[in-house]
């Protein structure tokens, strides 16, 4: 009740303001009349910023306003997600969420429940893949698994931080195949790739776009890809289902979300502008090259998608026994 009252109040305030501000008292308040803030939970230069910048110009044209990209790194992303979830729901604060948004509910004390935001649109889906060096003895996933089974703890798996997405994905491999790996954590994907190239770890799970340049450069070989069907960028690499296992690898996806309670027409405007931007040939071409799929999901399917990812990650967290320690 209170929420609705607040909402009514808010609308009243906005209407009054717009009446005051526009010379023509009957004109509707134009949205957006100031820059829309895109909140990125990671430091500049990461995939989130790249995604925002790839969308930027077409989004701006479509919505008829400008956007401002704001990096709010820290707390494993939770600083930004708290900021978005608690922002004024006027449509001017939009945040990008990914699988870590769901994961940090369990791995941090400051994680935000995914139920506190309204997802607008999925703009990209990047599957996870398992990579080894080109000169590694394992030619395919079966050989890798049977070696790891015969030598528990001997195969070293790099990841971008314990409790982070690809550590959890690697635990997923352990869970469905019954092998035991040694997990070596690095700070971020970059250092873990360097480590695999230098042979300081034996294997690595990361998202396809990150790995692809090294596969093309003949440095890495992919053993398996975590997508529902074969990926067009690497059609000769098998998927988990074909190997006879459940698809447990968690890839990277970007879903743009707003705090609960954004007025319907503004929500729709944001959605439409995102959709126009992600359907441009430039955007598709960029991510096709990177090995990602510009996969659309709208506000109807997304809550269920959040739920599904939540269930999957919850299972992995329960399996690993990972708890936020303070």
């Amino acid at each position, binding site marked *: 009740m209170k929420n609705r009252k607040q909402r009514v109040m808010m609308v009243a305030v906005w209407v009054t303001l717009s009446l005051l501000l526009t010379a023509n008292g009957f004109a509707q308040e134009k949205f957006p009349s100031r820059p829309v803030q895109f909140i990125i939970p990671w430091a500049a230069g990461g995939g989130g910023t790249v995604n925002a910048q790839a969308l930027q110009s077409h989004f701006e044209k479509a919505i008829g306003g400008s956007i401002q990209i*704001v990096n709010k790194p820290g707390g494993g992303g939770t600083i930004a997600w708290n900021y978005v979830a608690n922002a004024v729901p006027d449509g001017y604060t939009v945040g990008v969420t990914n699988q870590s948004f769901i994961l940090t509910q369990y791995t941090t004390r400051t994680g935000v429940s995914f139920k506190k935001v309204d997802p607008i649109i999925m703009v990209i889906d990047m599957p996870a893949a398992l990579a080894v060096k080109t000169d590694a003895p394992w030619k395919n996933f079966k050989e890798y698994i049977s070696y790891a089974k015969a030598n528990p703890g001997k195969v070293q798996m790099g990841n971008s931080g314990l409790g982070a997405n690809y550590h959890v994905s690697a635990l997923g491999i352990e869970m469905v195949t019954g092998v035991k790996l040694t997990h070596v954590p690095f700070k971020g994907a970059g250092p873990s790739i360097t480590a695999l190239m230098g042979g300081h770890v034996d294997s690595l799970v990361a998202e396809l776009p990150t790995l692809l340049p090294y596969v093309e450069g003949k440095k890495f070989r992919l053993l398996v890809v975590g997508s529902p069907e074969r990926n067009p960028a690497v059609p000769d690499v098998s998927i988990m289902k074909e190997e006879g296992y459940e698809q447990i690898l968690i890839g990277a996806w970007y879903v743009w979300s707003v705090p609960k309670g954004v007025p319907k027409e503004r929500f729709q405007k944001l959605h439409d502008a995102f959709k126009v931007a992600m359907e441009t040939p430039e955007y598709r071409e960029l991510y096709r090259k990177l090995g990602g799929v510009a996969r659309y999901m709208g506000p109807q399917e997304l809550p269920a998608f959040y739920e599904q990812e939540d269930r999957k990650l919850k299972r992995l967290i329960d399996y690993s026994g990972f708890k936020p320690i303070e």
Partner: protein
Amino acid sequence: MEILQNILTGFGIAVTPVNLGLCLVGCFVGTLIGVLPGIGPAATIALLLPVTFKLPPATAIIMLSGIFYGAMYGGSTTAILVNIPGEAASAITCIDGYQMARRGRAGPALGMAAFGSFMAGTFGVFLLMLIAPPVAELALKFGPPEIFAVMVLGLTILSYLSSGSLIKAFTIAIVGLFVGMIGIDIAGIYRFTFGIPDFFDGIGLVPVLMGLFGVAEVLLNLEQIVTRQVFDTGIKGLLPNGEDWKRSAMPILRGSFIGFFMGVIPGPSNTISSFVSYAMEKRLSKTPERFGKGAIEGVAGPESANNSACAGNFIPVLTLGIPTSAVMAVIVGALIIHGVTPGPLLIKNNPDIFWGTIASMYLGNFMLLILNLPLIGIWVRVLKVPYGILFPLILLFCFVGAYANNNSLAELNVMIFFGLVGYLMKKTGFEPAPLVMAYILCPFLEEAFRQSLIKSHGDFSIFIKRPISAAILAMAAGIIVLNVFSGVKKRRKSLLEKI
């Protein structure tokens, strides 16, 4: 011969009017943000990235990298003038640069920083051009045990960073290690975060630096406001004299080498290389007691090292697609958004970007020298601004910079806190440099240590079984032994004199 042909092609790309103009724009913006504390090159490059969307990729990278090495030129300016490092890599320049300014020699300090940067920058690019691919392969040999060894070596040079008591230097270094441990460790454990999300990824470098150096300096000077003796000594000469050049020649050369090779190693190599260069110059100097009191070698060496490190930084990015620092991560982002895949195939698939960028760096370094020399005359005039106006302005820049860094209010509080800490440290005879050094090294040291032991399943011999890490650790041990011996000798000498 192939290189000659390639670099000529590169120059062909770099000297087109558009590329030349935007290289200048990049260098100019870089100098500007280098001068402003807090606003670093990483954030600026990210901010300006959309501006480059309509440009060809090579042009974009030329401009954006200009911002990066331009910032290294500008970073020394505020360090020398007002004791605030414009960039972390210039923190060590504060020690002797600021002392030179207080003795009326801001001009030569700024001049030597610019000349040193120019020579080292050019030297770095030259090496980048010649030996990038093999050096990149070598860098890959640096796994966790090797990086651990490098960090240990870094810690052993702590003793050279202080001109006062050694015990105080090590005490404050331990405080630095402690500050470096705050945050989530690699096992996901929260350490001393007090539930504040802004602390999860560690205490930010920028607010710590600005607090310890800038705010503390302002607080300290408040006490002396009545006497105002400091800069009235007048400004003697705007450019380095013959004596300065004689002292600086070797430090610049050594700094160039150190910077380039450390720049290739993952981590905050610009900063570490400047610290290492400073320590080395002090160790090699016949008059180490001059350090900390305005020795020009203490400016020339580190400022050369951090510029040469820029070129080293580019190697893993351009040859392997691996970013080893925050700035390089943004450059990789820029490549991606321009549809260029960073990775081992970049040189082959996009020779225009690789060779064009390298050629533009030669030109950019030259532009920066031309740009910076006339500015010296203007900068030294800043010192004539009355304290009543200068100090509030410094504080204002610090506050804006600390907030703008990550749009975080908590970081502003961190800066104020470290300002007070820095003030108390000065009052009690502790110096900030060992704290900063230990604090920067700590996360890398710990991470590499733990990764190594995870890899070896707890076996410590991993550090001496691998040749590179064993050699580096032996060097570190050598430095310690040398130090102890020279310490004993000195004591014996002073004892003998007493008798």
